[in-house]
């Protein structure tokens, strides 16, 4: 293909849809490498410490869209100290210097300071899309900078961030000339916003299709907004609490009826059953529904609502839906692809809300189900085997039995056979989270059958090193492995050290690996960063030179071409 002019090669590369394919063609020859890098518009960095930002920017100067992920996944569950790292600033600085044409930035689990947002806002005249997921470190002041300086902003999407509220002014910083917004999500903001500014902003953005309000936005304001923006496709309601004023309620219903394009609803903060009928007019069109922040909507009211949502593809609910409610889902939502059932009682001490019955019902009634997140109080092997038979097309299967290490309550057996059936039947399974009482046997099954598996989460499972070895030897496509509270030690860790260079990362906490084992791994594999995280409290006698036999509490291993990082805090040792 060397006789094709480069413009033609570039056009051909345009047809490559995935990062993987583009990465692959860049390794063919020097010409292709050059063509690919100069025409690359979008880069995804799965681990911000795997490569230096300057290097990315130097290689792809025409970058328009950058996605970077920071902390390991278990940071979501408070297993990673807050100041472990994952700073956005170096990325924004490098892009400001090297890719002035940047239009989109997506960050997940990173620390983003207001100064970083200000730099971002001022550095890219064409900046259009900012998505921050599970980030922290910034405040509404940073948002004000984005609103003020990003003249052609299309998307501001804040999902589940820990952000400081410094007042409602930020929303008023969108200038009157800003009419380009397509998507605005500030649902995670804790404080008030100025209702008038919000209404005006909505009114002057005719292309607005996604709007997710926060808890502080009243139903009155929501009504007015719906009246101004009947073309919304995706709505996150605010507090959705209506008091006795019938007039407000009727206005709301009337405004909902006008929203013929509405396909996705979320929010419902503080919603009570009384308000639900307001959305009945549009239920029949909904493809997405998130009621997982509405604990006061239970039982019969929930069922009544779901019975009207026959087109649902994505449903997020709390476990107070019960097995009965899930049976209704199974009967009604024949298009369902993704189901998430969250625990309403987060410490898992309450009455059993959903069990294996609900899951079996959904698996049998919803033929298109491919993605599951299910928190329940118990699960049986028989149920899992049935689910595996009913739904061989699962790509994501995450089951969390709230009581760690709980066996099948009917047979008292571990759940090895059940999960084994899942991995054997679901040939396209890419993501799996295990729970319940599990022995090494389940890992034998996973190693044998889970060929497409990319991410595996293990907690309180396994008997011996053999378990982990089965997985490392068997799962050819494994990218991320995260393990907690399981009896895997140095022998397993060091069985196949080369494997870790084929993976993005390995996390192990409260397992049996020792400092010596980690040091050995680090010595053998220079292109891995082996991080040991030592959070010491005062009672700890651990000094500067702990013995190699000392068990390591938290270990994070990842491949990198950037070498050891230079921003690690004191308690993180890169061996």
């Amino acid at each position, binding site marked *: 293909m060397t006789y094709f002019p480069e413009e033609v090669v570039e056009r051909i590369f345009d047809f490559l849809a995935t990062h993987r394919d583009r990465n692959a063609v860049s390794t063919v020859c020097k010409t292709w490498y050059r063509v690919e890098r100069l025409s690359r518009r979008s880069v995804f960095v799965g681990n911000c410490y795997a490569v230096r930002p300057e290097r990315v920017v130097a290689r792809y100067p025409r970058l328009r869209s950058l996605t970077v992920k920071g902390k390991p996944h278990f940071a979501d569950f408070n297993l990673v100290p807050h100041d472990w790292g994952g700073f956005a600033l170096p990325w924004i600085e490098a892009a400001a210097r090297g890719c002035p044409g940047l239009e989109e930035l997506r960050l997940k689990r990173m620390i983003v300071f207001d100064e970083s947002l200000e730099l971002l806002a001022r550095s890219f005249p064409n900046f259009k899309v900012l998505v921050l997921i599970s980030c922290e470190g910034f405040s509404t002041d940073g948002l004000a900078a984005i609103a003020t300086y990003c003249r052609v902003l299309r998307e501001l999407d804040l999902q589940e961030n820990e952000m400081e509220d410094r007042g409602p002014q930020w929303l008023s910083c969108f200038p009157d000339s800003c009419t380009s917004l397509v998507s605005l999500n500030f649902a995670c903001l804790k404080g008030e916003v100025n209702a008038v500014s919000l209404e005006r902003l909505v009114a002057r953005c005719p292309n607005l299709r996604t709007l997710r309000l926060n808890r502080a936005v009243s139903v009155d304001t929501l009504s007015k907004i719906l009246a101004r923006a009947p073309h919304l496709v995706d709505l996150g309601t605010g507090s959705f609490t209506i008091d006795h004023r019938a007039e407000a309620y009727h206005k709301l219903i009337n405004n909902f009826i006008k929203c013929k394009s509405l396909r996705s609803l979320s929010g419902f*903060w503080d919603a009570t059953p009384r308000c639900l009928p307001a959305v009945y007019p549009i239920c029949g069109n909904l493809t997405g529904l998130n009621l997982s922040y509405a604990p006061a909507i239970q039982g019969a009211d929930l069922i009544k609502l779901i019975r009207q949502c026959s087109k649902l593809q994505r449903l997020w609910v709390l476990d107070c839906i019960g097995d009965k409610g899930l049976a209704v889902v199974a009967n009604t939502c024949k298009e369902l692809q993704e189901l998430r059932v969250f625990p309403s009682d*987060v*410490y898992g001490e*309450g009455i059993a809300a959903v069990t294996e019955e609900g899951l079996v019902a959904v698996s049998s009634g919803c033929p298109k189900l491919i993605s599951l997140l299910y928190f329940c109080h118990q699960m049986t092997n028989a149920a899992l085997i049935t689910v595996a038979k009913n739904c061989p097309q699962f790509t994501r299967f995450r089951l969390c039995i709230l009581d760690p*290490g709980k066996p099948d309550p009917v047979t*008292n057996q571990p759940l090895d056979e059940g999960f084994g059936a899942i991995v054997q039947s679901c040939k396209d399974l890419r993501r799996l989270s295990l729970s319940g009482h599990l022995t090494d046997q389940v890992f034998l099954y996973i190693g044998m059958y889970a060929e497409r598996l990319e991410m595996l989460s293990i907690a*309180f499972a396994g008997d011996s090193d053999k378990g982990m070895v089965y997985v490392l030897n068997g799962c050819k496509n494994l990218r991320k492995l995260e393990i907690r509270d399981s*009896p895997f030690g140095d022998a397993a860790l060091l069985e196949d050290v080369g494997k870790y260079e084929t993976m993005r990362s390995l996390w192990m906490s*409260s397992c049996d690996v020792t400092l010596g084992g980690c040091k050995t791994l680090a010595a053998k594999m220079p292109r891995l960063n082996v991080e040991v995280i030592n959070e010491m409290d005062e009672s700890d006698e651990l000094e500067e030179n702990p013995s190699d036999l000392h068990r390591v509490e938290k270990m994070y291993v990842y491949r990198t071409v950037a070498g050891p990082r230079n921003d690690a805090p004191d308690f993180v040792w890169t061996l």
Partner: protein
Amino acid sequence: MSTMSEMERSSTEMEVGYEETALTLGLPGGSRAGGSDQQERKHGFSETADLSHGSSGIETRRGGDLGDESPDCAASGAGRPPASKARVVGWPPVRSYRKNALRSCTYVKVAVDGAPYLRKVDLETYSGYHQLLIALQEMFSCFTIRDRRLVDLVKGTDYIPTYEDKDGDWMLVGDVPWKMFVASCKRLRLMKSSEAVNIAPRAPQ
């Protein structure tokens, strides 16, 4: 949801608050009623309270709700489930954002008919209706619990616990499961039974 020590702590805190303010401003009941009636469990909703109580304190068996531990379980040494059901860091795997969002502010005002000012209680610190009543009894020390109501034995008046829910309706305390009550209660009012003619009856489902 609350352990015994938390309950004791919250009672102590309420006593401290009471001492600071109550005596000089004349809350109903000047002196402590002797011997609170905590043994009385013949209440209509004590079953409700027990149902929603869930497990309190710490269980030491793995496999929690199961009957006898099977030999398989004990011998296999499988996994590393925590020895107690005491809260394990990061388990269940729910994001803090979600945990915080669902934990709405559960402090509610408590008004007593005839009292010059209100108190506040944190509903989350109680594991059920019975604990709530006990706390109210201790907060307004003239009261004794009798059959879902709070009775001022000295004055001979009794008070029915009612609450305003998120829809703005005034409801009788005790009808719905405890957790649903905590999620929907906006404020409490101890209503003199002589005024309680229009209490919302239990809503049919």
